[in-house]
């Protein structure tokens, strides 16, 4: 394909991607800061909404940013490891129940979880009494909860990737006397950085915008994540009045994600050169 054609196509998709976001940007810098006053072209440009966010005495916004980033980083790192372990076992080992396990992993995600909320209260009411550090309103508690979804789809993504890496690599290492742990850490892990980076990013984004669980789990203003806190801004009557602040918050939410992406991008792209070695 011609390069110019590639650029044209990508630019078109970018326009589609950014179009609604421009609306949010204009609402965020619009000094009137209400929903109806928002248009693609703002009435003026100011950073009032951002300033209001960080100086608000109702919304501990800085704290929310910190909570979100911390929870997202911790949970994506942990779930990355868990799903990588599982993917390694599923891709490289043959054991009874492997197929069933893989299929079950896929199917379990498909069950509509109407009663998830009831079960969360069931489990964590008890946990809150016994181990307050992991109970409701705690970062550690919600991290545990998020790890429940660690295996989910990520295992499949990584297993698929591992399947494309020639088995001979680790088999020869095993013959040389390496343990399965050495093979995993020293041979497999370095080879899969691109997909690790992609999965980490997906997990990070997923946690940053997770709302349903966090909303019932985190009820203290100080313990909330961005998504939960922001929902509170526009829930009820505040929808119009707070829309400018909300839009600003939406954009700020994207900053850590973009940061993580910029950081991880080199690992994703490094795969381009690594591919040459692998072949």
């Amino acid at each position, binding site marked *: 394909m011609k390069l110019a054609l590639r650029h044209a196509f990508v630019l078109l998709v970018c326009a589609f991607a950014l179009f609604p976001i421009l609306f949010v940007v204009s609402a965020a810098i619009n000094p009137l800061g*209400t*929903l*109806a*006053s928002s248009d693609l072209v703002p009435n003026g440009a100011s950073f009032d909404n951002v300033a209001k966010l960080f100086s608000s005495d*109702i919304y501990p916004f800085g704290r929310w940013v910190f909570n979100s980033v911390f929870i997202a980083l911790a949970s994506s790192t942990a779930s990355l490891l868990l799903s990588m372990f599982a993917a390694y076992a599923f891709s490289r080992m043959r054991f009874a129940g492997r197929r069933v396990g893989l299929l079950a992993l896929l199917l379990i995600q498909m069950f509509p979880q109407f009663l998830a*909320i*009831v079960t969360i*209260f*069931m489990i*964590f*009411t*008890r946990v*809150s*009494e016994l181990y307050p550090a992991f109970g*409701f309103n705690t970062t550690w508690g919600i991290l545990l909860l998020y790890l429940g979804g660690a295996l989910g789809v990520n295992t499949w993504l990584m297993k698929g990737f591992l399947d494309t890496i020639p088995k001979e690599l680790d088999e020869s290492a095993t013959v040389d006397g390496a343990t399965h742990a050495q093979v995993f850490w020293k041979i497999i892990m370095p080879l899969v950085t691109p997909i690790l980076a992609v999965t980490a990013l997906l997990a990070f984004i997923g946690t940053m915008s997770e709302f349903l669980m966090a*909303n*019932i789990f985190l*009820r*203290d*203003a100080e313990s909330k994540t961005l998504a*939960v806190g922001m*929902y*509170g*801004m526009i*829930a*009820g*009557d*505040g*929808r*119009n*009045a707070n829309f400018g602040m909300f839009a600003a918050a939406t954009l700020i939410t994207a900053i850590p994600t973009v940061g993580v992406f910029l950081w991880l991008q080199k690992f994703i792209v490094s795969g381009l050169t690594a591919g040459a070695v692998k072949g």
Partner: protein
Amino acid sequence: MRIRALGVAAAATVAFGATACGGSAPTSSAAPSSSAPSAGASATADKGSGKLVIWADPNRTKALKPFAEQFGTENGVTVEVKEISKDNQQTFLTASQQGSGPDITVGAHDWIGNLVQNGAIDPVNLTEEQKAAFSPIALKAVTFNGQVYGAPYAMENVALIRNTKLAPDAPATFDDVIAKGKELKKAGKVKEVLCLPVTAKGDAYHVYPLFSSAGGAIFGTTSAGDPDPKQVLVGSKESQAAFEKLAELGEKGDAALKTSLTNENSIPTFAGGKCAFLVSGPWAMADVKKSGVAYDVTAVPAFKDGKPATPFVGVQAFFVASKGASKTLAQEFVTNYVTNPDVAKALYDADPRPPALTAALDTVKAADPDAGKFIEAGAGGIPMPAIPQMSAIWEPFGIAEAAVVKGSDPVKAAESAQKTIDGSLKN
């Protein structure tokens, strides 16, 4: 409706929030027997005495905090106000059931029926004196099966908010509203004839004054004059005629009612001077005042030769959770603290909704005439029925409203709404 109204609402009939005080022995079996909740009760009971937890929605959390803290200081306890922003009622019920609920929750009075059938709240015992201090309609709203289940603190209903620069005279009938709106639109002075949120799925609450004035009714009335949930009249001849009237005002008619008008855009459109009439409640006033538009608040007028336009009245109330860890404190807070006019006045300052306490309302009226005007506009209103089945009615009614506004056949819409409501009430 199969729920039997318990007892007669005699004047002396007062509830009081106490657990297990029936004379007979079996009440001891009232302790929850499943292991998780009972462990929860016993474990939190020890530390519970010094802590009061209140759940509120985002509109009220901020307003409540200072008072909650003051109560805490006065009584030497810690009070925590927590914001729940989504599905407040269901979250409260689920959390309560599992033993992680609050001691007090703030909510609309129409939750009461459902909270009671789940045993989630206790009756609130108010003295005769305290009860007399409330506006009668607010007290009626929180009374369910003859018991008072919450302490009301604010009332809200819709009224007609008018841009006095565009429409200087208060319209006598709703036909005048439409005529004036159309005239202004024709002159290019406004964009919309009327700002009344219809939304794609209809909004029974906002349109009800018009619907009732056109002769429609959701319920029949009991001999006492209360709405009777046993007779649903959405599909009746009168209601069909009312839907017909809404259709005339709709997109194929006067274009005063439009499904594109939503709760999000109707208030800002009015505040931006792009429509002269807004049907909304006290929550709109913050935006309206900020915009600097000259306005006045009057009751939604009736149609010419129509019946009175009755708005629904909603009451915000404090409820005592029956599975809370600090019930005595919760009762103290709800019955003796928030019923104080000073507290009610201060709550108004933080979140301007007309107070349910008459004394507080009088103070507020002096400083802010709008509050009084809203109360006057709601004087002929009826409290939204608090029966759990009510939302089986809201949605089909709303869908019928949206359909006729878009031009569907009113008779068919009314009939299928009635059929749907009957079907779901049967289950």
